[in-house]
């Protein structure tokens, strides 16, 4: 069988890429190893339970509303664990003293302006710092201009905090507490950095760049993307695992499946992790030792465990208005840092910090707990899982006393489980740590930030590529755009 393009992995980025290629008239086949499409948005209880970062350019470009995606609604984050719940929605916060609320509003407004200077970079192929053409220099100059246009005070402040840590910024601006804890959670979500780690401001700005954050339904998003792929003439095959990317004369020729079947295509976009794409699917023999080393050594230790708690009745003390909202249990930034300290040394934190969502219909509380190392010291034994579950229910009970007694069943997925179930190295949500040395023109690593891989016809289209993780759809969108552009240029 031969196709114009094959996309490896039906995660949301793979589907976005497939739909965009399809719109360009290409016959696209999407191959998914799991039995259901959607990647971390797929399955019965998706790991990504609160997608809020979907980029409007993707929605518009693929006309996802016509394929059944309903407009999102603004996200409310409820920070629990303080005297009373702190509710954060955009620049507005309730449940704190008025001084803090005002300080937060001012800080938020400024950070959103600053993040706005970075935003145009997200929907573009990052420019090369050398050997780039005029267009790439213009992208770079455009970024500089955007930052300059912030005005002197904002620009200086941005350059001051850009490589700094979120702990210092929040301590200076609003002081510590549940509000700072919840915001620091945004800066470190899914990664292996504590709030005091340098470079935690940039991921925070990244997440602010997509303001206002709108919650979309993950299942509906995948459904709409599947329809968009099909409407563009593409096909999706699940339960089909790729063993090897086939290469001839330094160009991709297709893929060989685990079943032995070979599928031909001159263009392959991989939604798999960069390490897996290069060192496993393509094979190190096809690439230079330097790239194999970079792929091997890129930071990708996942630190989020997932627990699905079935409850006999709603969490004790949780306001019914907060059902379905984003609940954060991180009493202060110190709690995050302490949890991270343990994980840093491959140990289980006694008090992990939690991001939860309660679904009253299913009587289910889904909990993402960090920082929980993928490569836990002593391994993921039954006892270790028990300790994790105890630690998580303990945290929950501190914030919402009486809830632990209502838990009737717990289903736990450690980062190691996520790694195995999703074929995701390190179980890392973002296919590689979201930090300064792995962002923008350095994502996934230097020299590989333009989606094109060394073998002609191979592109990265997953979260490992710029602009990175979260459910934005942008890596897939950008990668497909780059592949189309290169195809027209005859590359």
């Amino acid at each position, binding site marked *: 069988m031969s196709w114009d393009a094959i996309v490896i992995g039906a995660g949301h980025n793979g589907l976005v890429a497939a739909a965009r290629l399809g719109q360009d008239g290409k016959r696209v086949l999407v191959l998914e190893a799991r039995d259901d499409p959607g990647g971390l948005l797929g399955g019965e209880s998706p790991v990504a339970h609160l997608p809020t970062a979907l980029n409007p350019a993707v929605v518009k470009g693929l006309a996802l509303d016509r394929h059944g995606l309903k407009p999102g609604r603004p996200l409310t984050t409820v920070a629990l664990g303080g005297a009373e719940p702190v509710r954060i929605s955009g620049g507005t916060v309730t449940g704190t003293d008025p001084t803090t609320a005002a300080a937060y509003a001012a800080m938020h407004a400024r950070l959103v302006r600053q993040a706005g200077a970075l935003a145009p970079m997200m929907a573009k192929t990052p420019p090369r710092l050398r050997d780039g053409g005029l267009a790439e220099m213009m992208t770079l100059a455009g970024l500089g201009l955007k930052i300059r246009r912030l005005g002197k005070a904002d620009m200086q402040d941005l350059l001051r905090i850009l490589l700094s840590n979120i702990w210092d910024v929040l301590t200076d601006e609003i002081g510590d507490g549940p509000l700072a804890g919840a915001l620091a959670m945004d800066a470190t979500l899914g990664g292996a950095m504590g709030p005091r780690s340098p470079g935690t401001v940039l991921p925070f700005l990244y997440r602010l760049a997509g303001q206002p954050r709108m919650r979309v339904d993950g299942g509906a998003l995948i459904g709409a993307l599947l329809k968009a792929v099909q409407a563009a003439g593409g096909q999706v095959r699940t339960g089909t695992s790729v063993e090897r990317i086939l290469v001839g004369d*330094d160009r991709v020729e297709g893929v060989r499946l685990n079943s032995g079947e070979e599928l031909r295509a001159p263009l392959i976009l991989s939604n798999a992790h960069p390490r897996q794409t290069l060192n496993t699917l393509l094979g190190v*023999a096809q690439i*230079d*030792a*330097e790239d*194999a080393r970079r792929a*091997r050594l890129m930071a990708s230790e996942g630190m989020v465990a997932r627990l699905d708690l079935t409850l006999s009745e709603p969490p004790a003390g949780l306001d019914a208005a907060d059902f379905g909202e984003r609940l954060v249990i991180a009493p202060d930034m110190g709690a995050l840092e302490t949890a991270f300290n343990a994980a840093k040394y491959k140990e289980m934190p006694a008090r992990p910090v939690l991001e939860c969502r309660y679904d009253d219909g299913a009587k289910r509380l889904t909990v993402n707990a960090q920082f929980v190392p993928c490569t836990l010291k002593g391994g993921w034994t039954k006892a270790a899982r028990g300790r994790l579950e105890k630690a998580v229910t303990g945290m929950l009970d501190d914030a919402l006393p009486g809830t632990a007694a209502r838990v009737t069943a717990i289903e736990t997925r450690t980062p190691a489980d996520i790694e195995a179930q999703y074929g995701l190295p390190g179980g890392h949500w973002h296919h590689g740590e979201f930090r300064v040395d792995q962002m923008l023109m350095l994502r996934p690593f230097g020299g590989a930030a333009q989606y094109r891989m*060394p073998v002609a016809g191979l592109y990265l289209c997953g979260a490992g590529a710029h602009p990175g993780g979260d459910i934005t759809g942008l890596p897939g969108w950008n990668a497909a755009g780059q592949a189309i552009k290169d195809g027209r240029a005859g590359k």
Partner: protein
Amino acid sequence: MSAARKPRDQVAMGLVPGPFHDRLAPLNVQQGWMNWMGVASPSVLDTVEFEYFAIRNQATVFDISPMNKYRIAGPDAEAVVNRLVTRDIRKLKPGRVAYAIWCDEEGNVVDDGTVFRFDDGTFRLCCQEPQLAWLRDVAFGFDVTLTDESADVAGLALQGPTSCAVLKDMGLAGVESMKPFDIRSFKVKAKSVTVSRTGFTGDLGYELWMAPGDALTVWDHVMAAGQRRGIRVIGFEALDMARIEAGFLLPRVDFLSSQTHMRPGRARNPYELGLDWLVHLDKPHFNGRRALVRLSKERPRRKLVTLEISRDKPAHHAYVYHRGKKEVGFVTSALWSPTLKRNIAYAWVDAPYCFDGRELSVEIYRQRELIWQRRMERATLVDRALFQNPRRTATPPADF
């Protein structure tokens, strides 16, 4: 604190003695030692001229043990070596040696060296720069074992027209049938010695490889057998003269490893070095191939050329000029060749002068009793390997 600790032996100049040190030290009347990978290596033992002429007229021994040596063994050994070097190593048969270079992802030369193939799945790489980290990167994902055997293998270069006769006198039966780049195993006084017909002199010569513990036994036997053949121990300076005549490059002198330079643009690719013949773009992917494909289509921006210079003063460190005015390059290695009676030098010369070669000159300074004289000497491009002698390849070698 314990007071019972014995003071450690002091090592001269912070250098470690090599496996032949006990024999070299009494002969080194000049006390001229160089640092070669941290080992004390003789620069000149008594007179560089005597040592040089022994290379071209008799037999010489030089300790090459400080060279870096790596064993690459296992089912994927051929694939790893072929991925490392730019030439097609699949064509190298067991029992043979090949000169090779290897490149980084930008097509710049990391190092050069010799690849020994002992059998299908066992290779040894001999080179100037430490390469274990690089080899580990190149071998990642392949089924091979890498061993740094630099300190586990002693090497002795036996070079010169009578070198084969010396080996025959030592009782190495059939050694005369070895062709250039052959490897063979022998017993010397019951010690295992691997002999390769290789060298850095462009002359008839062999390299003897053995366990460091056997080094002095083998040395004594070589020297005893060499008595009648005019054998002489030499230092690096004499070898350096021979290698310039023979057209061999020296890393750190004629080019820098792309892994050691600090400033951008200091690395050099095979096309600039004039080593195109070592790059086989038609073999399966190897390190730097994509960059080399691109570079092979471009005209090099500069080249390492060999110059013949008028008069007799070696052009050490000289600038190269076009029409006596425009600076277009500089000399890396220079020699008045006593055998060729020609004044030669290697120089980096910018394009297009490295191709055209007309109207080049070098600036030579001479000091005569504290007064400096500056002369512009005419320079012309010549082929690199100026010293060519049929005895280098003749098999069997003539019995001098």
